[in-house]
């Protein structure tokens, strides 16, 4: 029997003469309220060690964002789109996955990439500017950062489908922004996922803005999670600043997909505390009040105060977490002070498996120019 045996699709519930599987929409719709765990009885359901781990990751994540921002000020990074304020989403994208799963990040998701185990310098290579991508996608099963928005979503579907064909228990997680949901590729990916019943999860980090464009100009949907029903997949809504809720909902979604129950679309409601990138002037399109209001819901402070309430966090833990974070920052500082190796001739090496005769000629031309340059310098 094939993976795509359509006789396996749910028998029509409605109406008798309609075409294809007509599923019951009810279970696909998100709850009216976003899932929250911190500050609710549900928090008792989580292992203290998990909560403390999330805390340490959040602290490191915040420090990572600060250090990367500093590196741009020093001109060591060409540009940096900070995920400050979205760290709970970023780390959940790592904690919810198994090593054998795949992550499909967008350009803002380097923290998720690092949380998955990729070295920060490799994760930031694209933004540093010495190469298009710094890491081996197969080492940690992380696709290259995707800059064209939502174009990585169909890749995640294809990879998940391929894994299923191979009989592997792999799940693909695609990260998209609220703005990215407007792209045709987002639609086509979710539709393919639904039809193929591919083990893929789409996490939309709804941080309220696409550069300067607020969600109200991006979509009129009740919530972005409501888009799921249009593809026959499950939609979940979660508080993106609640690290515990993020971990729970995303883990459930991933296991739901893994168990063959179908793809899931998760909307995480969060906020981009920094400007779009260091090159952006957020003051042009949003108020200080708005930012301040969201600072009150900082994912880090939310978790920290919860842990303290539960008596799960000592001052020792705090300084310990800070130390780990500082070590990460140190590593970044040192590594970025090393000038990257640059080989102009590498421009021709990987265009094709074998350079074409045309590329060989062009490579020879550049080689000669470099030789002449070197001559001149001697």
């Amino acid at each position, binding site marked *: 029997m*094939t*993976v*795509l*045996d359509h006789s396996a699709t749910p028998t029509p519930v409605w109406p008798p003469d309609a075409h294809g599987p007509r599923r019951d929409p009810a279970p696909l719709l998100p709850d009216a309220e976003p899932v929250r765990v911190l500050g609710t009885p549900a928090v008792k359901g989580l292992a203290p060690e998990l909560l403390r781990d999330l805390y340490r990751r959040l602290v490191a994540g915040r420090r990572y964002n600060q250090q990367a921002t500093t590196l741009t000020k020093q001109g060591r990074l060409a540009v940096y789109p900070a995920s400050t304020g979205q760290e709970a989403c970023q780390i959940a994208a790592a904690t919810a996955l198994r090593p054998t799963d795949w992550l499909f990040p967008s350009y803002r998701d380097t923290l998720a990439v690092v949380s998955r185990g990729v070295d920060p310098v490799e994760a930031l290579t694209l933004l540093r500017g010495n*190469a*298009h*991508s710094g890491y*081996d*996608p*197969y080492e940690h099963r992380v*696709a*290259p950062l995707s800059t*064209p928005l939502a*174009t990585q*979503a*169909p*890749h*995640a*579907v*294809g*990879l*998940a*489908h*391929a*894994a299923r*064909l*191979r009989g592997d228990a792999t799940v*693909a997680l695609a990260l998209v922004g609220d703005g990215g949901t407007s792209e*045709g*590729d987002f*639609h*086509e*990916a979710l*539709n*393919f996922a639904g*039809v193929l019943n591919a083990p893929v999860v789409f996490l939309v980090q709804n941080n309220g803005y696409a550069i300067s464009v607020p969600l109200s100009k991006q979509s009129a949907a009740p919530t972005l999670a409501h888009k799921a029903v249009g593809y026959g997949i499950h939609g979940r809504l979660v508080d993106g600043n609640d690290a515990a809720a993020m971990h729970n909902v995303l883990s459930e979604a991933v296991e739901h997909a893994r168990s063959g129950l179908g793809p899931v679309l998760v909307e995480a409601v969060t906020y981009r505390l920094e400007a779009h990138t260091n090159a952006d002037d957020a003051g042009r399109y949003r108020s200080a009040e708005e930012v301040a209001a969201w600072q009150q819901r900082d994912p880090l402070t939310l978790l920290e105060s919860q842990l303290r309430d539960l008596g799960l966090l000592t001052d020792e833990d705090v300084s310990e977490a800070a130390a780990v974070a500082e070590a990460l920052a140190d590593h970044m500082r040192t590594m970025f002070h090393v000038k990257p190796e640059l080989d102009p001739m*590498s421009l021709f*090496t*990987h*265009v*094709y*498996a074998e350079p*074409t*005769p*045309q590329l060989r000629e062009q490579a020879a031309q550049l080689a000669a120019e470099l030789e002449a340059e070197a001559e001149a310098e001697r």
Partner: protein
Amino acid sequence: MTTLAPTQPALTQSSMAQALNAALRDSLREDPSVHILGEDVGTLGGVFRITDGLTAEFGADRCLDTPLAEAGILGTAVGMAMYGLRPVVEMQFDAFAYPAFEQLVSHVAKMRNRTAGRMPLPITVRIPYGGGIGGVEHHSDSSEAYYVHTPGLHVVAPATVADAYGLLRSAIASDDPVVFLEPKRLYWSKDAWSPAAPAPIEPLGRAVVRRQGTSATLLTYGPSLPVCLEAAEAARAEGWDLAVVDLRSLVPFDDETVCAAVRATGRAIVVHESTGFAGVGAEIAARVTERCFHHLAAPVLRVTGFDIPYPPPMLERHHLPGVDRILDAVARLQWEQ
């Protein structure tokens, strides 16, 4: 002691469609990582029946009817290739590959380079292309120039039944993405060729001289090859002995074969169906001139479609480069000087 000669199956008349179908079948059979996907490629066997019978033989997982979304199809193929599969995508018609343009240009063409060779994408994108079939708007575009201008893509266009098989096998076997342009118009053209004894797999990147000649050299590919051969025949009456080169592969380009053929005659004409302005013919004329300037008795001329949207069926014959238009160009090759 006697040795028995292996029994050779007789070469029957086969169509290009049959040869393409055979190439897909043999690829699916020999390599389990090959997967076909596209619109109507399964149950129906494709609107041109190129995938006829493949789902029946290999199952829906190997030859998949997808939803109607070209970017989704190609994007899904990218993900499958990332996981080690070897997807073969069918775009139903040339103009309907445009929705997948971003996936093709920004990902398919660039992934190997982006990842320093770690993540190659062995994807074949089959595109039935070109006119002359009485198709309505959007069903007769020649879009090769968009693809040849995009580094990272191989671009191939067979013109014979045997090449259709041999080049498609190589395209699928290639570790690089290949845009495989199938001249619709030649789908039903037949030739002595048998799927039972397929031609040797043609390596990509080699042009072939289809006709030797001394007066001038016609450079062409895909649907225009038969037209050029016909023109060469007709030219004999006018006392011209024309050579005809079938490029077969546009990227990589076979400068060696092409320049040798042009130097031999000192005169050349590029013939293709697509719009001329910044078309493939412009590149060929430019590079041949760069390389053979002092061998040229006349400028390299181009006989191409006009710079207009593809015409409605009843007017297409006026747009397509025909024998007369080619002969007119030959006459303009400054024989007097």
